[in-house]
């Protein structure tokens, strides 16, 4: 599903943030990406969700070698990925409902076909009553839940979440994690970057640990 081979990354002429990163995510797997702040977790995820090209190394996504693939294929690849950004990146002038509906609109679906899906997922993350509020009037945790709803609503093949539970209480964190597991059960490959060790202890999953730009081998959490 995803394969990194000797990937290196630096921003402009700066220092190398990632060094010789190699790993593979199997289709249908559930993986946590951990590591201290500044280790390069967000950078690694950015390479995976096609926000930045790697400085060197090989990335294969859905069987497509990114270095040789035509850029024209990228939009279709990106639509197969759901992303929860560390800074949410919601559109402030759209309601929670319209933000969540955005990926469905981009894939060409019609309002009457997706209205129910959007309402369902917003209700699941506990935002049913706040559906028509604009992001600036939502709390940080509520915004984060809108971002999560937007990432999962289109049932992506790959879900990438960057600190998806950073702004919610532990109970809500567990509830959101159940959403990710549910999605995983339906076939989505999941990768979650987090500091929250309590989150990792839950369920069947593997861990990738990033320290100072390098991957450190970790055993399966619960094989």
């Amino acid at each position, binding site marked *: 599903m995803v394969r990194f081979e000797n990937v290196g990354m630096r921003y402009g002429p700066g220092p190398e943030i990632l060094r010789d990163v190699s790993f593979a995510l199997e289709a249908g797997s559930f993986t946590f990406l951990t590591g201290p702040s500044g280790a390069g977790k967000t950078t690694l995820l950015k390479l995976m969700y096609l926000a930045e090209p790697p400085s060197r190394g090989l990335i294969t996504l859905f069987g497509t070698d990114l270095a040789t693939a035509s850029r024209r294929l*990228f939009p279709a690849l990106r639509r197969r990925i759901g992303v929860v950004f560390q800074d949410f990146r919601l559109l402030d*002038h759209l309601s929670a409902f319209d933000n969540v509906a955005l990926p469905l609109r981009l894939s060409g679906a019609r309002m009457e076909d997706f209205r129910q899906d959007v309402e369902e997922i917003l209700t699941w993350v506990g935002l049913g009553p706040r559906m028509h509020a604009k992001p600036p009037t939502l709390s940080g945790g509520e915004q984060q839940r809108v971002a999560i709803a937007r990432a999962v609503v289109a049932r992506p093949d790959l879900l990438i979440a960057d600190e998806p539970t950073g702004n919610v209480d532990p109970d809500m964190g567990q509830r959101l994690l159940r959403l990710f597991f549910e999605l995983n059960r339906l076939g989505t490959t999941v990768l979650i970057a987090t500091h929250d060790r309590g989150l990792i202890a839950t369920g069947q999953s593997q861990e990738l640990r990033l320290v100072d730009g390098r991957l450190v081998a970790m055993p399966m959490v619960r094989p």
Partner: protein
Amino acid sequence: MNLGLRAQQKSVLPREAGAASLDVVIAIMAFLAALSLCAVLIAQRTAQDWRRGLAGKLTVQVLPPARGPVQPALARETAAAVQVLKTTRGIFSVHELSEAKTERLVEPWLGKGALVADLPLPRLIDASVVPGRHVDLVALRHRLKTAAPDGYVDDHRHWLARLSRLADTIMWSAYGVLGLIAIATAATAAFATRAGLSAHHDIVELLHQMGAHGGFIASAFDRHYLRTAFFASLVGAVLAAIVFAAAGGLEYVGLKPMPFLPPLALSMSQLTWLVLIPVFGGAIAWATARLSVLAALRNIY
């Protein structure tokens, strides 16, 4: 039903509040474009009027003879020339200008009174050509030579050519101005699009990140600028139309703002050409915005 649901979908771009300066610039451009377009129309019509007014006319001038008694010779040659004209194919009306009328024609140059009365003035004969018919001038000149040796035919070709050239020059200059305005409008739209792109950089990047095609993102922008430019240039064109309608009204009540210029009044059917201005203004802004966004998107990974 379907349409209603589609209309409910909010634009991915917030409604612009700070783009008023763009509207003003485009409205001014459209106003200037409308003025140039009107100049084209006026030049075209004037050239046509001049051609129509003079092209159907021949003038024969009978000069006073160099020797001998003047008046009898003038009268005889004029009568002969009239006869020649009347028997020329293609000419349907021949009209000799009376001495009094000729005197009035030269009055502005020579003054009134005794001096003029003594001066031997040439006689003028006005002939109208059947519209569309060609008069064989060589043959006419030849016959005139024998009948009235002092008669000269003038078909105003020289004047006409110069006036046509003048009208053409005005017309092409106005076309040139139109072209420059179109370029300036495109440049303005490109500039505004770039400003809009950087103002909404986060939105554009997010949509791009979510796998939106360039066309989807571009259409959010180009629709906005299409609407803006269309309405702004509509305002400019309407203002210009009002100006010309007012000028026409003034001329109608006998007030001519500029005595030496051809009439500024444009007919309703000519003013409808101004509809082209918002159409083109909108199209230029649309295409420029679209191309700018697509070009900017190509620079993102």
